[in-house]
């Protein structure tokens, strides 16, 4: 098998990633493979430079087998990791962005994002079971225009929350976003208010909301639902902030300290309840839900 054949070998001169920051560190190697095959099969760890088989990464919950770096997870893969097999029912899968501001090139960008991510928008929502506990789940798709929030993302989250209220279910949102989608202008901004208002209704119904922050969670998402969890979990080392690091550096004219705006920093500053490794996430979510659903049976 191809996988077994290539395992542990490094094919490093080849550009296996669009990110050029790391290519300098890579040692040269005699074995060269065609670019097109490479890009399909291999990728390079952004942290340690290790060349990894994509299939391996996927099996390892999208972590680097060498340094434990967390790759971003496509929304549907995340759903597979969290929900029990074959329990997922998707909501509103056909909701699509229009171009309300007639913003130049927006349609083209949407098309490109769909091609890249195989999703029609930057979020997937629906319901399913976590070790038997029925839950509404929203997972943002960082591969779709950096997980930016426009009208569709706001609407799908809001509908999912409203569905949870209707069905009396808990809500979990996996955040991964560069912030509001500027191509929809003020309408994007207003999705922050909309989703927060929906969460206030969920809260009035005493239904739990767990926010899970993954790399990156920034901008308008941080300033709305991401920070509104009854319980806020984060994956290790995720970038979490209101302003992006570059914007801050421009504002204050100095470089940011090591670890600034990472999960561990946020926890120290009081904004994250718990940092949970990817492999324990399902179990931890289950336990939290279990304790919360015990409560609701008990007192109703």
């Amino acid at each position, binding site marked *: 098998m191809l996988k077994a054949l290539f395992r542990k070998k490094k094919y490093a001169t080849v550009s296996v990633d669009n990110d050029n920051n790391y290519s300098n560190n890579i040692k040269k190697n005699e074995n060269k493979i065609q670019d097109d095959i490479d890009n399909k099969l291999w990728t390079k760890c952004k942290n340690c430079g290790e060349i990894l088989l994509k299939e391996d990464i996927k099996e390892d919950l999208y972590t680097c087998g060498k340094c434990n770096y967390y790759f971003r997870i496509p929304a549907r893969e995340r759903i597979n990791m969290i929900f029990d097999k074959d329990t997922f029912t998707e909501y509103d899968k056909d909701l699509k962005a229009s171009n309300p501001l007639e913003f130049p090139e927006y349609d083209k960008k949407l098309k490109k994002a769909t091609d890249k991510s195989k999703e029609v928008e930057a979020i997937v929502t629906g319901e399913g079971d976590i070790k038997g506990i029925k839950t509404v789940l929203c997972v943002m798709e960082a591969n779709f225009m950096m997980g930016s929030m426009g009208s569709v993302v706001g609407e799908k989250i809001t509908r999912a929350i409203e569905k949870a209220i209707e069905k009396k279910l808990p809500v979990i949102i996996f955040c991964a976003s560069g912030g509001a989608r500027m191509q929809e202008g003020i309408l994007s901004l207003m999705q922050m208010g909309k989703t927060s208002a929906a969460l206030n209704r969920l809260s009035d119904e005493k239904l739990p909301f767990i926010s899970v922050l993954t790399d990156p969670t920034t901008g308008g998402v941080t300033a709305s639902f991401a920070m509104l969890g009854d319980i806020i979990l984060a994956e290790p080392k995720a970038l979490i902030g209101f302003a992006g690091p570059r914007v801050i550096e421009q504002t204050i004219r100095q470089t940011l300290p090591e670890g600034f705006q990472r999960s561990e920093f946020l926890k120290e500053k009081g*904004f994250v309840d718990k940092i949970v490794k990817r492999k324990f996430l399902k179990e931890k979510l289950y336990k939290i839900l279990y304790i919360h659903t015990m409560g609701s049976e008990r007192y109703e």
Partner: protein
Amino acid sequence: MSNNLEFEKPIIELENKIGELEKFSKENQVDLSNEIKILKNKLNNMKNEIYENITPWQKVKIARHKERPTTLEYIEKIFTDFIEFHGDRNYGDDNAIVGGIAILEDTPVTVIGHQKGKDTKDNIKRNFGMPHPEGYRKALRLMKQAEKFNRPVIMFVDTPGAYCGLEAEQRGQGEAIATNLLKMSGLKTPILVVVIGEGGSGGALGLSIGDRICMLEHSIYSVISPEGLSSILWKDASLAEKAADIMKLTSKDLLDLKVIDKIIKEPPGGTHKDLDLVSENIKKYLNDEISKLLKLEKKELLNNRYKKVREIGIYK
């Protein structure tokens, strides 16, 4: 002169010229009434031409004009017995947001708003109207106080944005704004929002969830500054004017997009040319709307508020 806006220059120049002619005519007892009449006609046409066709970028300039009245100036004109309250009972008192209690005609209210400075020293104190988390938390504290004592809340919005600094991040800028959005959507007392200048992104939104949202004619409200957008799109902040053209940030745009309920007219050139008039118009608007809102049951009030924010968004 430096306080005048670029696009107003022809008007100012012509006004000066007319003034000179009038002075010359008087001093030298020369009859120039005909010439002056013609010029005044021209001035009127020019004013119409210019002020009726203010571009988005020109509106940005007006909204940021250093003479544009700030929250405390409106408070002084619109309310009586304003008493400012300070602090978030937590970390600090943020001078970029002011708030307190006051009386609007016969209604006790809580008034809160972003506060820009009127000069350099004041602007440093006010951090140019860019709040830290403690500013939003002070606002929330005062809103909860208003809720407890059944006072409507009046918000004045005028900020380039929430501050993007190290300490602001550290103390939870995102959390502070998010919490305001959630709590404001459920606050059991009327909230009326008036955008008086710059409605800068999340920093503006953090004080802007309400039952009524109006904008002064030449104020702006946007997800990002034109400079920010142009530097993202074209890696060039100097193309801000071009960005302003496409981003739909004027009061008219926002009314069309159903984000706001009402535009309050400004005098030609902007509010700073007639603060009394604009204050009077705001006051009338607030009075009318508060009396409607106070008639609603709390539940209806909150349902309407939810619907209002719920319906924003365009998709297919």
